[in-house]
């Protein structure tokens, strides 16, 4: 579902954030991406979202070579990739419902369909009774779950998460990870960047480790 073929990313100024990274993630997999701060986790996710382009190599998502996606095609690609951010990136001027509904409005669903899908997503993350609340009135864990609902409401085949538990205590973090496992079980490809080794090593999933932009265990 997600394939990296000898991908390197060099930023302007000469810093190599990723070096010769290759891996493959199957459609029904949940994979953790780990490594120290600055190892290149966020950069890798940004390549999948088409927020960056690799300097060398190819990234394929769902069989599509991302270097072939024209600028016009980027929005459609992003609608197929749900993203959960560490700092949620909720919009604080609108309700929980409207935050979650955003991708659906963009995709052009009509009102009834939007209502149905938003409620289903909020129900999944256990926030149905908060749909009218403003995000600032929610706790950090709840805000993160709103962010997750927004990422999955459009039923994307791929779900990315960048340090989704970065600001949460262990119990809440475990809860959030269980949610991701549920999505993986229904066929969503899930890639989670996290440096919380204690948490992710307890869960039985594949772990990809980056060190200074290189894949650990890969031939040098």
């Amino acid at each position: 579902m997600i394939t990296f073929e000898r991908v390197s990313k060099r930023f302007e100024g000469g810093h190599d954030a990723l070096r010769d990274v290759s891996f493959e993630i199957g459609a029904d997999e949940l994979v953790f991406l780990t490594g120290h701060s600055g190892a290149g986790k966020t950069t890798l996710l940004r390549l999948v979202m088409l927020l960056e382009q690799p300097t060398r190599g190819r990234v394929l998502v769902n069989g599509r070579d991302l270097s072939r996606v024209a600028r016009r095609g980027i929005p459609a690609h992003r609608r197929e990739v749900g993203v959960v951010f560490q700092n949620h990136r909720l919009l604080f001027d609108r309700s929980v419902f409207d935050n979650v509904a955003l991708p659906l409005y963009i995709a052009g669903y009509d009102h009834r369909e939007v209502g149905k899908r938003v409620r289903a997503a909020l129900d999944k993350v256990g926030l149905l009774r908060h749909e009218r609340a403003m995000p600032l009135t929610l706790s950090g864990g709840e805000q993160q779950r709103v962010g997750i609902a927004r990422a999955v409401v459009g039923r994307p085949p791929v779900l990315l998460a960048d340090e989704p538990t970065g600001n949460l205590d262990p119990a809440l973090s475990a809860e959030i990870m269980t949610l991701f496992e549920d999505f993986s079980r229904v066929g969503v490809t899930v890639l989670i960047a996290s440096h919380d080794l204690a948490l992710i090593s307890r869960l039985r999933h594949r772990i990809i480790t980056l060190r200074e932009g290189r894949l650990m265990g890969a031939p040098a």
Partner: protein
Amino acid sequence: MQRTRVSHRLNAWVRHHRLSAADSLRRVLERPTASLLTWLVVGIALALPVSLALSMDNLRALGGRVDSQAQLSVFLRPAVDAVAGQALAEELGQRADIATATFRSREEALEEFRARSGFSDVLGGLEDNPLPHLLLVVPRDPAQAAALAAEIGALATVDEVILDLAWLERLRRLTELGARLVLVAALLLAAGVLLVLGNTIRLAVEGRREEIEVTRLVGASDAFVRRPFLYSGLWYGIGGGVVAALLVAAVFAALRGPVAQLAAAYGADWRLAGLGLIDAFGLVLAGGALGLIAAWLAVGRHLRLDPRG
């Protein structure tokens, strides 16, 4: 399948237009003072060149009316008496290139001058009539008036020929110059409107930067991001156009009375032409178009999030 997809996308597009239009209007109306100020600035900037242009139109119309009755005032030498003057008038009247030649005696001229100028008291005090006999000559072809004036001016009995075309010509030149100035003013003020509206939209974009970024991250197209701001520009521009139309209408309504009185004092049946309904509509449209352009330019610079240009 194909049809339902197309109609689904069309519906979605219409829906987002409706949402953007309503949402932008709500944002504009939510801050009435700021929006009213923007409307006023745009309105004044649009009203200025339009008022000037309308004034020029009125002047041109006035020139056109006088133009068609271009005439030569032929002043005879003081030594020439009324009989000789009358004879000259008849002689000139026979010519093919002259439509009419009318003799006006010095007494008649004085009488008319008294009546028209309102200086009757002053003139009444004069012992001698200072005016010479006068012929009013109307050429068949106004374009030939200058040549005719030269020819008649060379006659021994003629003191001076005043061609009314001289001031007409000056008026024409002035209106031409005026039209240029109006064009320059209109361009400058339109640029000003673009800058003001562009800045307003830019501030709106800055205020919603996080929203723009998040919408793009979850798959919004450029058009989707741009749309609400285009509508904001449209509302500001249309509001400004309405203000401009009202301002112009008010200015011309205020001028109509005095101008009519002035025209009456000159015995002219001439009325000030204001802004027609269609012109007013055009002004509102022009405002809307400027708003759209300003918004497009302002948002365009903020859409550089993606790696591929």
